[in-house]
């Protein structure tokens, strides 16, 4: 199963003040917070880690039908960033999800899967002009934030 999550970085600035006292502590563990505060692109790292957690959570909640808001239980690890891409893993209880992220100055987008090889097979479409009939194309996973719509096909 595939999950995906897009963060419109301009919208994120309007929506969320991650520098607010207590904010990071509710979402990110010490290791993740270290990645955020030790780098130069703190804001990008916040949304990269967030989109990893969200995309993994979407698979988990779809598979188990369990809804919960437990960002600290989703743990990002093995994060490798090269140029405008990143790969990593998110663990949630006993499950492990593999993630692949892409970013530019406008958005961060992550796809997650329980099978690493599945990530190579998917087709991703990201647009800021969502066609009204996109649901007819049967995307496997849909994410929408701000100006952007991300569709993933398997």
């Amino acid at each position, binding site marked *: 199963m595939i999950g995906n999550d897009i963060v419109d970085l301009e919208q994120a600035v309007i*929506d969320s003040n991650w520098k607010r006292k207590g*904010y990071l502590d509710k979402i990110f563990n010490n290791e993740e917070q270290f990645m955020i505060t030790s780098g130069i692109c703190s804001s990008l790292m916040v949304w990269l880690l*967030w989109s990893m957690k969200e995309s993994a959570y979407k698979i988990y909640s779809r598979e188990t039908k369990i809804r*919960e808001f437990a960002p*600290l239980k989703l743990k990002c690890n093995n994060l490798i960033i090269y140029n405008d891409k990143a790969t990593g893993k998110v663990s949630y209880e006993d499950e492990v999800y593999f993630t692949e992220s892409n970013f530019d100055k406008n958005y961060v987008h992550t796809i997650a899967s329980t099978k690493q090889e599945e990530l190579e097979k998917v087709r991703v479409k990201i647009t800021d002009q969502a066609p009204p009939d996109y649901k007819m194309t049967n995307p496997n996973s849909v994410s929408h934030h701000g100006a952007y719509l991300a569709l993933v096909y398997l």
Partner: protein
Amino acid sequence: MDRAELIARLTPIIATYAQDKDAVASINETTDFIKDLKINSANLVDVILDVEEEFDIEIDNLSMERMLNVNAAIEIIEDKLKTK
């Protein structure tokens, strides 16, 4: 503090982050933060931090996990106020 008063103090907090402003007008105990009010999940953290400030309580991670609707929020606030 009774439930009506709790909802009255909770409503302006969740209204700040609700993207469906019409749904805010009809808030009741069954209202779901994400499904009904379309609160962005990154803003759920703000709801929790605002509730902590408003009621001067601390919401632990286990409580936060189930704080997805008005009813759960009220239960958690009542519980934390009791043990203050």
